[in-house]
């Protein structure tokens, strides 16, 4: 029996508390098949086995709370570890640069990694905490993104309630495609900058 089957059975049998727990744990970074769970929840709503508003509220709160746990762990646990390592081995300048990048792009990155490039979500929680990205801004950018993610996936499950597995499969592939495309855009931008730099030097 796969973990997906177990998760969905548990959601059906025990309802919201299980949904809440699963999303909370997944938002911290445990790779659960969370898209299928949310889409299936949407389908269960359509069939009258769950209620729409409680599902969206519980899932959103769980996702936002999970983010804060990931952020908090790295900010108050991970940061001191990094400081100790950089004191001994150096590299503080690099960390500073990472912080600057995080401060500049952090908000947009946090927002889009909640619902569009979801594979990066837990990872960005940790880097934001590590870089001491302001907590209030982390919540301001993160929470709407998480609510959007929950509403989007639950509604897709609600609309295509008779083909939950297909929708989840398509969403899973799309998520990877978007992740790869994001990487390609960043790398392509770097390449263009290299090219411009070298042609301006030689000119």
């Amino acid at each position: 029996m796969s973990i997906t089957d177990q998760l969905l059975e548990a959601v059906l049998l025990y309802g919201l508390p299980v949904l809440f727990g699963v999303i909370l744990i997944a938002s911290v970074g445990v790779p659960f098949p969370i898209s299928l769970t949310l889409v299936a929840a949407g389908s269960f709503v359509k069939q009258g086995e769950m209620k729409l508003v409680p599902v969206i509220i519980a899932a959103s709160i769980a996702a936002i709370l999970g983010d804060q746990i990931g952020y908090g762990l790295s900010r108050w646990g991970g940061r001191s570890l990094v400081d100790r390592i950089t004191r001994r081995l150096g590299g503080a300048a690099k960390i500073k640069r990472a912080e600057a990048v995080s401060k500049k792009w952090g908000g947009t990155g946090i927002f889009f990694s909640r619902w569009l490039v979801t594979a990066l979500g837990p990872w960005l929680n940790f880097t934001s905490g590590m870089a001491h990205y302001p907590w209030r801004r982390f919540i301001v950018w993160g929470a709407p993104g998480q609510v959007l993610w929950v509403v989007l996936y639950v509604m897709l499950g609600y609309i295509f309630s008779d083909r939950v597995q297909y929708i989840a499969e398509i969403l899973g592939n799309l998520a990877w495609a978007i992740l790869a495309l994001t990487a390609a855009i960043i790398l392509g931008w770097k390449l263009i900058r290299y090219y411009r730099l070298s042609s301006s030097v030689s000119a």
Partner: protein
Amino acid sequence: MRRPYGKAKGHIFRDHQSRTSVEMDPQALMMKKPTWRQSVVAVAFLLSLSLAIFFVVRAVRPLIYWHYHQDEPIRGWMTMGYVAHSYHVPPHVLHQALGLPDKPPDKRPLREIAKAQNRSLDEIRTVLLEAIVQARRSNPPSPSPPTNPGASP
């Protein structure tokens, strides 16, 4: 954490560059020979681009076959309500097939039902599929024919 490693690499990199720049015209080097770092970025770019195309194709493919592959494989987490909903048959047909009262509707996942009836999930799946085929024969609902959806991966 990665600092000493990066530092060592940086030294090698710089040594390599200074040696080549002695041998070659620095301007020509800038123009023609991409640095080690540039080649890595270029390879990573191509790799991520091909990955993106691969996953887009995988995501779009089920959309093309949307109408032909309507029937989802029956899984243990599904309820009879979901199976009936997904296969577009009345729920009472499935309840009857498993010898269960349809009011109130049985909301247990199929695996729970299988456990309670001391049957394997495969057995339950076969019974349900037979009932679905029967129901569709007597009351053809949708353009999609009863294919072989039980063949789950």
